[in-house]
C-alpha cells in the first residue's frame, strides 16, 4: 500500500530561501570585515606553543657531548606503551651508559612519564610537533638522533609551583 504524502502548507515568509541566504551572507561579511581573523598562514606562520606542550623527545647532553643517560632502565620500565628500548653497557672508564637507546615516537603517547622518572634529567619531551616522515622506521629515534634534536624541551611543571598547587 503506497504511503500517503502529507502536504504541509507554510507561509511564504517561512519557506522562502532568501531570508536564510541573506542571514548566511551577513555572517560571511561580518567575518570578512572583522579584525579578529583566525585563519593561520601555516607554514609561513607558526603556532606559539605553550612551554608545557608535550612533543617528540630530546636527550640532554654533557658538555663533552655525551648523552646524560646513565642507562638506569627507569624510563623503559615506567613507559606505559613500552616504546623505549634500552641496552645498558659499561664504557671504557667503567661507567654505565646506554649502548642502545631507542624511542618509537609512533607508539609514544607523550605522557611525559619518562621525563618525570629520569633521575639525571636526561630524556625530555620537546616543544615540537612537525614530525612528518616517509616511513615508519624513521619514527624510531635512536640515541644519536635524540641528541641532535634542537627544539626546546618541555617544562613538565611550573618552576614557580612544582606541585601544581
Amino acid at each position, binding site marked *: 500500500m503506497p504511503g500517503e504524502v502529507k502536504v504541509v502548507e507554510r507561509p511564504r515568509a517561512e519557506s522562502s530561501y532568501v531570508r536564510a541566504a541573506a542571514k548566511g551572507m551577513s555572517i560571511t561579511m561580518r567575518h570578512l570585515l572583522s579584525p579578529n581573523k583566525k585563519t593561520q598562514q601555516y607554514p609561513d606562520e607558526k603556532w606559539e606553543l605553550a612551554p608545557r606542550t608535550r612533543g617528540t623527545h630530546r636527550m640532554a647532553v654533557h658538555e663533552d657531548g655525551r648523552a646524560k643517560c646513565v*642507562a638506569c*632502565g627507569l624510563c623503559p*620500565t615506567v613507559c606505559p606503551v613500552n616504546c623505549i628500548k634500552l641496552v*645498558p*653497557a*659499561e664504557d671504557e672508564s667503567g661507567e*654505565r651508559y646506554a649502548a642502545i637507546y631507542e624511542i618509537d615516537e609512533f607508539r609514544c603517547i607523550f605522557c611525559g612519564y619518562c621525563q618525570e622518572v629520569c*633521575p*639525571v634529567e636526561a630524556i625530555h619531551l620537546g616543544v615540537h610537533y612537525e614530525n612528518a616522515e616517509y616511513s615508519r622506521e624513521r619514527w624510531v629515534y635512536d640515541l644519536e638522533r635524540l641528541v641532535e634534536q634542537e627544539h626546546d624541551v618541555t617544562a613538565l611543571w611550573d618552576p614557580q609551583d612544582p606541585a601544581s598547587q
Partner: protein
Amino acid sequence: MAENGAKATVTLKIDGVEVTVPSGTRVIEAAEHVGVVVPRYCYHPGIPTRPAQCRMCLVEVEGRPKLEPSCTLQAADDMVVNTASDTARTARQSVIEFLLVNHPLDCPICDAAGQCMLQDYAYVTNQLESRVDEPKRIMGRDRISDDILYFADRCVICTRCVRFMRDVAEDDSLIVAQRGDKAYIDTFPGRELDNPFQGNIVDVCPVGALVHEDFVFKARSWDMDAAASVCPGCPTGCNVTIDTKENQIVRVKPRHNAAVNSWWMCDYGRKHLVMTNRGVRAELPLIRDGGGDGDGDGGELRPVDWATALDWVAEKIDALGSPGGSAVVSPDASNENLFYLRTLLDRLGVADADFRVPQGETAELPTVPTLKLRADRAANAAGAGFFGGRRADGPPNGSAGGALVVLDDELEGAGEDFGASADFFLYLGTRLPGAARNADAVLPIATFAEMDGTFTNFEGRVQRFHQALRPPGLARPGWMVLSRVLARLGDGEAVDDVRGAFERMAAQAPAFAGLTWDGIGLKGAPAAEAAGVAGSAEAGA
C-alpha cells in the same frame, strides 16, 4: 642445647604474639616465627659469627633500660619484645641516617637496586631527607678478585663478606682495612682472593657493594624472572635460583637447603650454569626416510614436523621388534628422561646404557660437610645408575648392530662411522654433534633449564628443578617426546605435564616408589633406594 637442666623450649612475646621456640634461639630468629623480619645487616643465618655491630636490629625489651640487638639476644621465658616501638624505630632511623651520610645514592646505576636492604630500610624507616651538608667521602671501585668488583662507596661495612670467607670458607684473605668512615673491604696485603667458594660473598652482601663482573650493569632486578632449580655441575646438586632476562640466564644464586648446600654454592657451578644454553642447538626433528614418500630408507636427514617424526620413529621401532643393541646416555639427563628411555630400551631388548662422566678437581667448603664440588662433573649419574646405566670410559662404542639409541650425549671421540652399522640409530639431543651424522632420526630435546624435572644427587636425594627458559625452535622435553613415541606403540599415554611423567616413573621404577612430585617439594626427598646408589662412584665419599 639446653644448659644444665634448662627447659628445651622458651616462650616469649614478640609484638604482642606469644611464640615458643627452642631455647638458645636468638630473638631475631624467634621473630621470624611470628612473621616479623627485624631489619638487619651484619646478621646472616648462614654465618656463625654475630658481631652485633650494625645496630640495625635493635629492639625494645620490657624491663631493660636500653635497646638490645636482637641478633645476639637469646630468647628467654616471659620476655616481652617490641620490635616496632617508637624508640626502636627511631634508633633504626638514626642507623640509616648514618649509613647514608657517605652513601652515593647511585641506585639508578647500582645492580642491587630493587633487591637492596639499604634501599628497603631507608623507605621502611622513612629516612628520605639528609641533614648532612658536608661533602661525601668518595672511594671509587676496586677489583677484589678476578671476577668480583667492589664498589666501596656503597658498602655498609656489615663484614658479612669477610666473615663468610673467614668463618665459613676458613680463608682469611679478606679483611676490613682502615677504620671509621675510611673503612673498606680489601684483600690482606700480599694475598689474593682465590677461593672456589668466593662467589657467595656477592650473595651475602646486603647492598650493591660486591658485584660479579659478568653481571655488572646487565639487568635491573625487576627485569629478571626467577626459577627454582638445581645446579647440574656435579652430583651434589646444590639448590639454586636461576635469574633470566630475555630468555638468557644472567645470574645464578644459591637457594637455601639445609640438607644439601646450606646457603651456598661453588663458583664452578655458578659459571657452568650461566654457560648452559649457549651455543648452537638442535631445533627441528630430522628423519631419514628417503624423501617425501615416507616409505623408504636412506637418503638425507630432512626436517619434518613432530607428528611426522614421531609416527615414523614409532613405525620403525614397531617393525624392529626386539633386536637388542646398545645405548649411550648422558649423565646430565633428568630422571624422567632416563625412565622413559629405559622403558623404550626394554622394549628394544637393549640392556646396558653406557654413560661417561667427565672428571674435574674437587673442592670442599670446610664448615659445611654436605657441600662439596665433587669430581664427577654431571648432575644425575645416580639417576642413570637407577635405570640400568653402566659407567664407561673412553669414546662411545657405536659399532654394534641392532638398535642404537643416544640420549643427549655429545659423543666426543666417536668415529666417522659411529652408528653406521646399526639397524636403527635414534638420536635424542639438545645439540647436533657431528657423530649424529649417521642417525636415522634426530629428535631435538630441551636442556634441564628449559623444562621441569628431577635429578638424583650423589646420596640419592631426588630434587626438582623448574623451567627457567623457553626451549629453542621445536625442541621439547625428552619425557614429553619419549612418552609420545611410547604412546604410539601402545605403551601408556602421551604426557604434557611433568607430574604425569613423574607419577608414571614413581609407579614403575622401584627406586622412586612412594615419591610424588608435590611430596618431594622444593627441597627434595631421598629416593627409596638411597642406600644403593649404583651410578655414583663417589657415593658415601
